[in-house]
């Protein structure tokens, strides 16, 4: 079983119990940490060349929503990510949806007729997800303006919103 199949199997099993909801959310780490994830390439859902995640989020306070089409719990978090994008776009926040472990055609088919308020990128080989140590979906990763990972959580909660506000003010 390759890594992708393993992740899919683990998360699918969790999905049967609410997509990992029973597992306690990982505590946010507010101290910025360097991560290899930003050096790894992601593919835009819209046509375009692969580009390092760090280029996508360069110079912006960013929230990356790691999700998959089969993950039911991801839908709620993605809805919150969309509201977060709309609420703080004028303040400079960038929200990025990162589809994990799926091909462009599948993701495009899923999103057809579902307008979204932020750009979607693909991580079909799970390179970025692994580098972020995102063992379960959904996972939310918050980056500061310098591209450093500031927090990682299973959902967008009041703590994430407050953190985003603080980062935007500081930037």
């Amino acid at each position, binding site marked *: 079983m390759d890594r992708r199949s393993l992740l899919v199997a683990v998360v699918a099993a969790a999905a049967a119990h609410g997509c990992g909801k029973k597992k306690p959310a990982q505590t946010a780490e507010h101290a910025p940490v360097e991560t290899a994830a930003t050096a790894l390439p992601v593919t835009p859902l819209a046509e375009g060349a692969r580009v390092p995640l760090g280029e996508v989020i360069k110079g912006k306070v960013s929230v990356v929503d790691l999700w998959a089409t089969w993950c039911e719990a991801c839908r709620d978090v993605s809805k*919150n990510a969309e*509201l*977060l994008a*709309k609420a703080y776009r004028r303040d400079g926040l960038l929200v990025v949806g990162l589809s994990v472990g799926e091909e462009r055609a599948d993701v495009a088919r899923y999103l057809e007729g579902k307008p979204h308020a932020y750009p979607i990128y693909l991580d079909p080989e799970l390179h970025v997800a692994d580098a972020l140590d995102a063992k379960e979906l959904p996972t939310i990763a918050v980056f500061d303006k310098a591209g450093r990972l500031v927090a990682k959580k299973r959902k*967008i909660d009041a703590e994430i*919103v407050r953190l985003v*506000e603080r980062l935007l*003010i500081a930037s």
Partner: protein
Amino acid sequence: MGTSLGRLATALAAAAWATLGPSPASADEAAAALAAKKELEARIAEEDPGWRWEALNLQTSFLYQEGRGLQSQAGPIGGRGREDAWVLQPWAQFRVRQNDQVVHELTVPVDIVSAASTDAVDAVSKASEYNEAVTLDLTSTYSPSEVVDMSFRFGFHYEEPMRSFIGGPSLTFKLFEENTVIGLNMIVMSDGFDPHNWEGKDRGFTARTSFGFNASLVQVLSETTLLDASFGTTQQWGTLETTWNSMVVHREPTEEDPRTVVRDGERFPRSRNRDAFFVRLSQHVPGSGTTGKVGYRFYLDENATFAHTLEAQLFQYIVPWLYVRAHGRLHTQTSPDFWVPFIEEGFVESTKRTSDSDLEAFTSREAGLRVVLLRERAPLAIRGKDSFNLEYLRYQRDNGLHADFGSLGYQKTF
């Protein structure tokens, strides 16, 4: 002076415009961002059910009125007496959420009134000189779905020499993605009080009861146009007069009392029905940060009082987080058929009568300006979950009464 003030206001507005980034167009963008934030907070709150503070609203209003009226003893007998008064009303409202379906709103207004009744010379009640009143008013709302809200309101009011109870249910239907909102509410108010007369004599205990029904409709006509309308009816029974009010009586002198002009109490019908219909159109101008509202109210009392009220409001965003509201109101009313300036010689005790200047036929005009600062829409560096408002209003009747009203408010959400 007026011109100088006008120039100053223009200069200040221009300075604010230049300094703060003049883009009333972005008021719409700020509103959309705030709406998204509110929805996000609501969704996050749903995941964490339990008791929590939701909002706090503090408001302090001050009113000073000057005028002369026939019911006042503070003047020549048979003529209009002074009806000067001031009212200070601190007011607090707390909203507490019990869970994602139940919310409670507690309102505590405190009235401090001078010259609450300008003509009583009572020794028992202090109501004529200075009066304090306090109310506890609780509305609990249960929202079993996104379509229906069910509320029950109940409260108590204390005001010397009166104790009141208020209670009633209401239903709100939010239909067609909230493009149509229908509200129905009923209210019962019962007042029990010591009927002091205009000489301060306590005549025991009496009561009055009011039943009110109100139906309202808010209809979105387009993305920028809103219509709201309501109809309300109130039925009252019991002692409806203000027992410590008095009016002038012309009479034949007697051997014991040679006066030809004395005072007696007012007397109201034992029941009274009042209806009001209101309609208002609101129009937002996209990209300009401007909203205008025009409303009309028709009022009918079964005792032959008609009233027409026309009002207009203009909201203008200076920046996305600061707006001014200018408003004007024109009101005209006839008096009830039992309004008389004085009681003529040979009157029958049971004759219905009042000379209350609030019920006199008059036309009034009102104009006001309110400034509201919404920190929720402010730039992130000064953004907060609260807002401030400041208002001034001038009210004038053609019978000489006029009032100045000031208000300062603070609202916070948690």
